[in-house]
């Protein structure tokens, strides 16, 4: 269920043109590979000299509580999430979660306390779409909305499709995301989430604290 990975961000110098004109605050992505590479991409220069942390949620939820629930929760620490449906309950297939009613949105909230600047959920994305009663993928249009006000509308044509965001402004953080069904599919099919990818950039103070804790732990073991 948990797949934690670390990526070191590049401290490469900013290319000369990067600061010309308008500066991004929230960047949308339609490719998982590009979303994963973004924090260490020297051209995007999101968080130079910081280390990004990733978490992958595969919604491995099973048992009697996996059908008709009022909410699901997962993750831990900064990646803690709670999912609800805008109208009615939600269920799990064991590898994805979906709103029980067609037309309902899936809402994810991230309520773990964080310190600013940095910290909190700064990157979010996933495989979102529609599923039929038989559990099969159905193409359709979704509107992915961030708490920052930024959003993307995309017609999903394959189960491998990806949509996501990174917040580039260190003073902004993602506290929620809504997966809203649009178009004709919204009337007949449930909106679902197959996989959700999350990213954070811990504040320098938090990294230093972890380092001090590690040193203290190793000294105690030596004693």
């Amino acid at each position, binding site marked *: 269920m948990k797949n934690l990975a670390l990526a070191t961000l590049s401290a490469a110098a900013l290319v000369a043109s990067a600061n010309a004109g308008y500066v991004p605050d929230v*960047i949308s992505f339609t490719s998982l590979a590009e979303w994963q590479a973004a924090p260490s991409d020297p*051209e995007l220069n999101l968080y130079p000299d910081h280390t990004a942390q990733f978490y992958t949620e595969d919604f491995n939820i099973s048992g009697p509580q996996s059908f008709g629930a009022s909410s699901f929760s997962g993750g831990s620490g900064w990646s803690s999430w709670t999912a609800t449906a805008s109208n009615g309950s939600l269920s799990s297939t064991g590898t994805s979660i979906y709103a029980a009613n067609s037309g309902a949105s899936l809402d994810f909230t991230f309520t773990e306390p964080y310190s600013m600047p940095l910290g909190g959920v700064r990157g979010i994305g996933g495989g979102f779409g529609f599923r039929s009663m038989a559990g099969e993928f159905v193409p359709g249009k979704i509107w992915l909305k961030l708490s920052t006000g930024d*959003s*993307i509308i*995309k017609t999903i044509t394959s189960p491998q499709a990806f949509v996501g965001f990174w917040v580039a402004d260190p003073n902004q953080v993602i506290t929620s995301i809504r997966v809203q069904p649009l178009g004709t599919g919204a009337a007949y099919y449930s909106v679902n989430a197959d996989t959700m990818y999350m990213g954070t950039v811990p504040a320098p103070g938090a990294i230093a604290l972890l380092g001090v804790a590690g040193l203290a732990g190793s000294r105690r073991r030596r004693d």
Partner: protein
Amino acid sequence: MKAFVLFASVGVISSVASADVVPGVVAFANLKDWQAFEMDRFPSYYTVVDPLTGFKPDDYSSLSGGSGWNRWTVTAANGVHAGSSYVSTQMDGDDLLFTFTGSTSAANGLHGIGGNFGFRNEAGQFQPGKILLTLSTGASIVQNVTLKTDFAGFWMEDPNVLITGMRLQPLGNAFTANYVSVDNLYFGGVPAPGALALLGVAGICTAKRRR
């Protein structure tokens, strides 16, 4: 006195109309989705496309086009180039910077923008590559362009927020000896709810005066 009543009425209508709207910027990677947003969300608005075919193929320090609310100017650090149906930078690695100064009024300004973006080589042929598209509002999208018809664009959800500029930044190695370019520019303008209400109230007053 009549004017005061008129504007007071407009203010109430505007705040009610926008009470359930969360202002933001919507990104799109598909022209049909961008056009559908117009029809679903703002049926009273209008869009135009500039095919960029009106320029003599040559190098320029800047280029301008459109008229009124969709007037645009494009620049680049080392100048821009006009092809038969596209505009590009003259130097690889340069950004294309668009400014939209046609209107400062929310009622008649620019609220939606999009285009077919990509790269051109020395021979003027389309080349795939990766682009970062950034609006004056800070909203951005990274697009891996593979076809000449690939599209990226935005709409403002809040009809009071205008788009005043856009930057096309080449990313990755694709821009080496290639020049970031645009083939078609799509513009969307949305009459503000206040302006619509004003027109409606003015129409009622005129009709009443006629009777």
